């Protein structure tokens, strides 16, 4: 090498590969308002669909007359369940093995349920006609309380399956029962509780919340009668799944369905499932022969498509008197609403809830989950978490605090004592999960040092004493949470959706001039995939990230994949990307050897080139090799430079983190001010630290919303009272606290680049951390658990019940 040749480090930096805080390439269009969302799709002759919805939570439909609506100028068609029956689409299968009404068939089971679909020349005409569809209802008794769903006299929600004794997951024990699912060793756990020195038991509710993406769900369906082909643009987190399910439901052959997910304005699990609006739009397009657009408004989004959580958990911990946990037991009632449209891997009706032993070394554990029907909207999606992981993390992190309180131990010290130790990895939990890697104590220690935890506790004590003396009306709370996620679904032996193994894919083509395109089965909704996948390729292939186009969302061009949710893009498609790169690199190496007239093994990789070992001046750069791949490949070798990989991960990945939060509570109003929030995350190999930080900020902000104010609330008559931003707490920049982020980096040993996924960690760890902080402030006055959300009146009520208002 001469002096003019840049060093390896200089060349590596120019690639903007893994570890680089590369600016998000998608933001160039987003910040200029040039994104292309479903609502931007406008086709010639396009019609607009709008839904008539039920004002009742539970009622029989005694009359449905569309005559007046159909007579509104501009109205082209009005669909009802009777119309859908003619094409056998009044009901549709759900991802969870249940069936769901597309339009109300005889009765309505939740407020705002879809009753009829009006199709018109304009949105305005459709909205006018919606008000003129005449529906008469005979109200039925309503139940919105999951704890009462299996009472002997509970209102029967699902008459269609009243005689069905076997559900999708075994025997049903009540007409409102969906499934029972258990994990762990019951006998061993019961024995641990019998021997325990100290036990705690608490009823912990994770309220029903909503993912609430800024862009609501929408689609445009366009059926070409001549070709018999359907093109469907939509807000789909999993476009291929939509195509397959769409084909199975509609009987249109899969190759004649083209699903396109353009730019998406946030998903968070809300955009995984198939909704009535999509089915109605497809049918309407087939019936009218014209494209049909359906756009959900905010009220419809909050009250009908895909809620999350609604887990009601009875949790117990057994412990020795010196603070070593010995057993964990949890019984959960899961409210799935009127239809089981939960988005889980099919074999896991309660998702990966058995991650509930968390980050701790429990020798014995057992959990049982009963799913029930109520008069509430269907859903149960993994809102910014892997399936039901945030419910599990919330439950165990609250329960650990409650046990520490009973033992008189500090919450951090008690955790430190029970965390799985570094030398125990790979660690098999009492529920059978194989945690691949981690160094938990180091993470917690770092968090405690960074926040000066001991000093915080001293300050808290002084402040509490001042409160008792009447010198202040403020209490300080310190929240500690240590969470372990289980993401990257998933190993196909464990996870499938309707029988489709949960692998994912990447297809990379390197063009002759050395730039390239990568297409994947995942779908970004704001995660920055166009930026980060290109960084993996840059490092793996030595081509600048700027020269790689990343494309997702078109089922005609992208390889098959299961989509983006459950933090699975990096663990699964990120791995597929690296593996496809390695196929390309292996071929490039052979071409280089041929060109340099050496044996393959005589070459070594150096950032962006293969060079001859011991003779670094003889090399071929990847750009040169790309050109050669199209005009001077070795005899017998196929030309071209591309590869595809379908990656079936050997295991899940297990990101983790240690979070600490400090709050100041105004006891007289119940206002909680977040003074400080420190989040340390370990997501393994860090692809783009800036994007990771952004993900942490976003997830913490959502966690803040959930813990401090969110609830999809139903009154006893089945009315959803929180269906707009007036009453559903979505924090703005004004309410959002300042976030401090930090990290450790323990790569996943089974992942090709060691990455674990990060987008969902802050939601999973954030919610218990906020809640623990609020609970911590009151724990010194004898309170063990205050239910979320910790909004003003509930916090004030807790203080009132503790006699803190004098």
């Amino acid at each position, binding site marked *: 090498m001469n002096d003019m040749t840049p060093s390896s480090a200089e060349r590596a930096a120019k690639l903007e590969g893994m570890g680089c805080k590369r600016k998000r390439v998608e933001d160039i269009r987003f910040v200029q308002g040039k994104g292309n969302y479903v609502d931007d799709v406008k086709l010639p002759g396009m019609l607009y669909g709008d839904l008539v919805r039920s004002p009742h939570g539970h009622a029989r439909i005694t009359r449905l007359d569309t005559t007046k609506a159909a007579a509104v100028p501009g109205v082209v068609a009005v669909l009802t369940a009777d119309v859908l029956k003619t094409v056998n689409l009044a009901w549709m299968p759900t991802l969870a093995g249940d069936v769901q009404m597309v339009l109300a068939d005889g009765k309505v089971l939740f407020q705002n349920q879809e009753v009829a679909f009006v199709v018109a020349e304009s949105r305005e005409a459709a909205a006018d006609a919606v008000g003129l569809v005449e529906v008469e209802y005979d109200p039925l008794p309503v139940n919105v309380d999951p704890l009462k769903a299996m009472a002997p006299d509970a209102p029967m929600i699902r008459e269609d399956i009243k005689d069905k004794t076997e559900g999708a997951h075994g025997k049903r024990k009540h007409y409102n029962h969906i499934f029972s699912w258990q994990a762990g060793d019951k006998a061993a756990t019961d024995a641990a509780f019998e021997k325990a020195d100290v036990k705690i038991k608490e009823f912990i509710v994770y309220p029903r919340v909503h993912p609430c993406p800024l862009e609501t769900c929408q689609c445009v369906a366009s059926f070409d009668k001549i070709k018999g082909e359907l093109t469907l643009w939509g807000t789909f987190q999993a476009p291929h799944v939509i195509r397959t399910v769409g084909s199975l439901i509609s009987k249109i052959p899969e190759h004649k369905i083209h699903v396109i997910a353009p730019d998406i304005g946030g998903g968070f699990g809300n955009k995984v499932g198939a909704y009535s609006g999509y089915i109605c739009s497809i049918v309407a397009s087939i019936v009218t022969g014209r494209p049909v657009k359906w756009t959900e408004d905010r009220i419809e989004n909050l009250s009908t498509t895909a809620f999350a959580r609604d887990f009601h958990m009875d949790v117990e911990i057994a412990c020795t008197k010196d603070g070593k946990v010995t057993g964990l037991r949890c019984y959960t009632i899961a409210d799935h609403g009127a239809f089981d449209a939960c988005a889980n891997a099919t074999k896991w009706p309660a998702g990966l809830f058995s991650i509930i032993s968390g980050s701790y070394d429990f020798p014995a554990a057992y959990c049982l989950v009963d799913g029930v029907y109520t008069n509430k909207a269907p859903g149960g999606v993994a809102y910014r978490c892997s399936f039901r992981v945030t419910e599990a993390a919330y439950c165990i992190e609250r329960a650990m605090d409650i046990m520490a309180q009973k033992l008189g131990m500090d919450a951090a010290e008690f955790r430190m004592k029970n965390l799985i130790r570094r030398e125990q990895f790979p660690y098999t939990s009492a529920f059978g999960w194989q945690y691949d890697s981690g160094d938990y104590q180091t993470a917690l220690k770092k968090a405690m040092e960074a926040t000066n935890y001991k000093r915080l506790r001293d300050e808290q004590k002084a402040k509490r004493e001042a409160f008792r003396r009447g010198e202040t009306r403020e209490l300080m709370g310190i929240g500690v949470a240590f969470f372990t996620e289980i993401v990257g679904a998933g190993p196909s032996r464990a996870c499938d959706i309707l029988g489709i193994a949960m692998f994912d894919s990447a297809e990379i083509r390197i063009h002759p001039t050395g730039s390239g395109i990568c297409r994947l089965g995942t779908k970004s909704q704001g995660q920055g995939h166009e930026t980060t996948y290109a960084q993996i390729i840059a490092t793996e292939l030595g081509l600048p990230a700027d020269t790689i186009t990343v494309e997702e969302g078109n089922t005609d061009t992208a390889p098959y994949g299961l989509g983006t949710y459950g933090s699975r893009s990096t663990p699964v498609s990120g791995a597929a990307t690296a593996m496809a790169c390695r196929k390309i690199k292996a071929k490039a190496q052979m071409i280089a050897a041929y060109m340099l007239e050496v044996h393959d093994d005589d070459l070594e990789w150096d950032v962006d080139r293969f060079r001859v070992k011991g003779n670094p001046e003889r090399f071929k750069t990847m750009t040169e090799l790309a050109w050669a791949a199209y005009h001077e490949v070795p005899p017998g070798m196929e030309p071209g430079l591309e590869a595809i990989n379908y990656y079936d991960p050997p295991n899940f990945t297990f990101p983790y983190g240690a979070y600490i939060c400090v709050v100041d509570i105004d006891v007289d109003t119940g206002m909680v001010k977040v003074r400080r929030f420190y989040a340390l995350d370990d997501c393994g190999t860090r692809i783009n630290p800036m994007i990771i930080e952004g993900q942490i900020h976003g997830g913490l902000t959502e966690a803040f919303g959930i813990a401090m104010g969110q609830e999809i609330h139903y009154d006893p008559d089945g009315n959803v009272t929180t269906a707009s931003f007036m009453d559903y707490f979505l924090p*703005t920049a004004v309410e959002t606290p300042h976030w401090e982020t930090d990290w450790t980096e323990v790569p996943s040993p089974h992942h090709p680049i060691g990455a674990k996924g990060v987008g969902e960690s802050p939601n999973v760890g954030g919610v218990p951390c906020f809640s623990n902080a609020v609970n911590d402030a009151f724990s010194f006055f004898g309170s063990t658990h205050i239910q979320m959300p910790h909004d003003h009146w509930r916090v004030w009520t807790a203080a009132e019940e503790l006699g803190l208002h004098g």
Partner: protein
Amino acid sequence: MIPGSFEYHRPSSVQEAIGLLAKLGDDGRAIAGGHTLIPMMKLRLATPAHLVDLSGIADLKGIRADGSDIVIGAMTTQHELIGSDLLASNIPILRETSLQVADPQVRYVGTLGGNVANGDPGNDMPAVMMCLGASYHVMGKGGERRVAAREFYQGAYFTALEDGDVLTAIRIPVPPAGHGYAYEKLKRKIGDYATAAAAVVLTMSGGKVADCSIGLTNVAETPLWAEEAAKILNGSSLDAATVKRAVAAAEAITAPAADARGPAAYRTKMAGVMLARALARAKSKARG
């Protein structure tokens, strides 16, 4: 969330607006900033066939001194209230309150007239106007009349306005120089209506309350003027015991609805907490 169709009118004078409203009768609605009416129309809870937009009427704009009063045109936006030097130096509670109304985007368009005229108990300005002893200029078929803010509110969305009336201006007597003031509002987030809020204007003399007025927001069907509570405070040094009695008197006149902000009993308590805090802050600002 698509409103029904309607005809849009944009008169350029108050007389023209009143003529239009008289002609249109029940089919017509006056619209100011639209932050209450338009959401109602999107939900189709309101379906006016005609909207009479008041924003083209120059006479309804502006803030001016008129003797010992300040007169504010009904179509003056909250943002303009915040920026007014005349108000800042004479009735600073208006700036303080405006900064707590909704959010900046809403304040650019939302008007003082709309805020006080539509009778929404969640609006912040009505209680402040009752506290300040303001009166409203109302133009109708029978000409102009003035209605005291303390007499204006009859129930949720029911006011002294008759069909076809337009509230044209708000007249506020300037409180004595050196007065103390505060608007304390508890809300869940920016843009929210008050869980409870209290407006206080007081003057101190020799360490005692010489005069005091109190308004309460969103703790009854109408904004409240807490006359009894104020009477208790007059002549006191705002000592803890007297404040406690005044707070109890203020709480006693509340009748809030339970909503997502909390149960009725909580909101009543919060009215008391806001009042106590407003009194303390007003006292700290008062001279004399």
